[in-house]
């Protein structure tokens, strides 16, 4: 039963030739733009700082991936736009900070923060979102209200000073390859993101759970009719998204200090990631996170004054040319 379901659900419809042709155009166009940007960037900086910024961008993108993947999973399945995701991130980071302070154990802090935020997610879904299930816009507005509450309470509990989370000793300091040195912690973050991405892809594509989730994305009623407790799946996915956000909070706080207002910043970056990549698409979250991370990192190096604004241009371009995002599906 399990295998037939997995098989039946994993059959994808073949893309039509016209869309293929179109995709080819997009690919060529974006490669050209990419080449141009790389050329322009290399003109204005040395090769060494190019690699430095690339790694900076990838490590920031890694944090964004944790945030955006949970966000996009929740949206894909439940059609809930959880704008409290930035708040989840911030609370996770602060819980991690406290736990590191008490125990000195980074791994424990990661676990505690992720689980703590998972509980917040559970309460959010069961208590706040359940009564207005299916009303898309009220759901979004409610999560905004929740963001204000979470952010302000964090400020009350942890104060407004920028707070770095200390990372374990073996991740401190730079890693040297020849005469090129780069912070170990950031490399660790990139590695983490790769591992998490692989796990997520595996779960989504290869397991029964992933099949149920993918089926739920396409047709919730039929999945429920097949005898699957879709409500439990909803709660589970929401909790998992919150788990990832809490995890991201601690991981990110290792090199982006925690401070009030960061919930909104992370939310903004996360939104741009999913708008670029395509809402509800896991590969889209990967692509979007890499793009946004790189754009932000290079923009900060080349035009620091416009660092936020540089997100605007690619977003505008995508929205005008391809509103569903690079890898998104037309609804």
């Amino acid at each position, binding site marked *: 039963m399990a295998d037939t379901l997995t098989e039946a659900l994993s059959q994808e419809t073949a893309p039509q030739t016209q869309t293929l042709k179109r995709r080819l155009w997009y690919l060529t166009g974006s490669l050209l733009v990419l080449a141009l940007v790389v050329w322009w960037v290399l003109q204005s900086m040395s090769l060494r700082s190019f690699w430095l910024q690339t790694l900076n961008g990838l490590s920031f993108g890694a944090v964004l991936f944790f945030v955006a993947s949970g966000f996009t999973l929740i949206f894909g399945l439940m059609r809930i*736009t959880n704008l409290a995701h930035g708040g989840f991130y911030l609370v996770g980071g602060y819980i991690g900070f406290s736990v590191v302070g008490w125990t000195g154990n980074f791994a424990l802090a990661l676990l505690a923060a992720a689980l703590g935020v998972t509980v917040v997610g559970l309460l959010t879904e069961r208590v706040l979102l359940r009564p207005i299930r299916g009303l898309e816009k*009220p759901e979004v*507005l409610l999560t*905004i209200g929740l963001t204000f509450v979470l952010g302000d309470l964090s400020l009350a509990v942890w104060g407004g000073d920028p707070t770095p989370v200390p990372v374990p000793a073996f991740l401190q300091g730079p890693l040297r390859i020849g005469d090129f040195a780069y912070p170990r912690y950031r490399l660790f973050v990139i590695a983490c993101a790769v591992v998490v991405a692989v796990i997520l892809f595996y779960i989504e594509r290869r397991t029964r759970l992933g099949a149920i989730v993918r089926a739920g994305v396409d047709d919730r009623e039929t999945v429920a009719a097949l005898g699957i407790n879709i409500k439990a799946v909803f709660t589970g996915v929401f909790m998992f998204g919150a788990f990832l956000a809490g995890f991201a909070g601690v991981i990110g706080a290792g090199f982006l200090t925690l401070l009030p207002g960061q919930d909104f910043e992370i939310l903004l970056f996360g939104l741009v990631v999913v708008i670029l990549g395509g809402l509800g698409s896991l590969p889209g979250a990967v692509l979007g996170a890499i793009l946004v991370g790189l754009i932000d990192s290079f923009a900060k190096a080349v035009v620091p004054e416009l660092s936020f604004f540089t997100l605007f241009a690619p977003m505008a371009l995508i929205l005008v040319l391809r509103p569903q995002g690079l890898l998104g599906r037309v609804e």
Partner: protein
Amino acid sequence: MKRVSITARVQLVLLAAGIAFAVVAPYIFNSFIVGLLSLALISGLFAMSVDLLSGYAGLVTLGQAGITAAAAYGVGYMANKVGAGIPAQLLVGLAAGMVASAIFAVMAMRSGGVYFMMITLAQGMIVWGLSIRLYKITGAENGLTGIDRPSFLSEYWQYYWFVLAVVLVCSLMLVIAVRSPFGAAVKGLRESESRMRMLGYNPALQKFYVFMVAGFFASVGGILLVFLNGFISPSAATLAASAMGVLQAILGGIGTLIGPMIGAFIIVGIQNIVSTYLERWPTLMGVIFIVVVLFARKGIVGAISIGWRRWLERREQAASDDSAVDPGDLPDELALESSEPR
């Protein structure tokens, strides 16, 4: 006799009482309260512009404060950095707001629903990011100061009456707009985009128009605000500022014009009373947000309308009159609730 719908009657009564009160307010209250009333009126205009998009067109915007801030920064830049006169300040302020609206509108016009919310949120926050980073133009965290009102408006009560007049004129324009064919097309966007397309409308273009109209009123609000405070800082463009407009609109009654104004007075009042005793205003605002979304999505105007209708029904039942009160003047499914098939 032409039947006037109950929602409209509620609005009329509230409106008449409100205007009478507003005109005499400076004779009754001290400068602090009158300043607060000016702020509430401006917030109300802002909330109406939010509601034109969110309630009438069904496009809930979370970035409207970005437009307000753009207009305010336009004024501030001309006053503080260039040292230009009032006409130039007004012109540049309005132009900045309209340019921001046009860019936002082009980006968002092909989307709808939650996607529209996400895009506008990002747009508003990018204005905020710019206002923090573009030190040379915006003065970063310090903002821009030294924005003086023209001499004939320098007294607080003079400016209050000026704000009242501008807001009334703008409200009248909005009333005319939502009752015009344009307004009908805007409501059509909310009800069914596919039907609008079938009738020969271009929904994206309609969205662009309504976004520009809302942007105009948001810009006027921004200009009024910057002259009220005499300064502008990045906090004007935060998500909290945008969300406040949405909260005010829903609390008062989304899809009406008087509702957002009532909501604005209530929220501005609560904020200023609470802030003197309590530090945790954002928490309270968040809680109000959650409570309103969970339990009071029809808002105050909606609640009063329902109460009034029940009262009328009971009275007519008592008189055993057969003629029913006109049904269905209050939409059961509010614009906030998705009407698309799920």
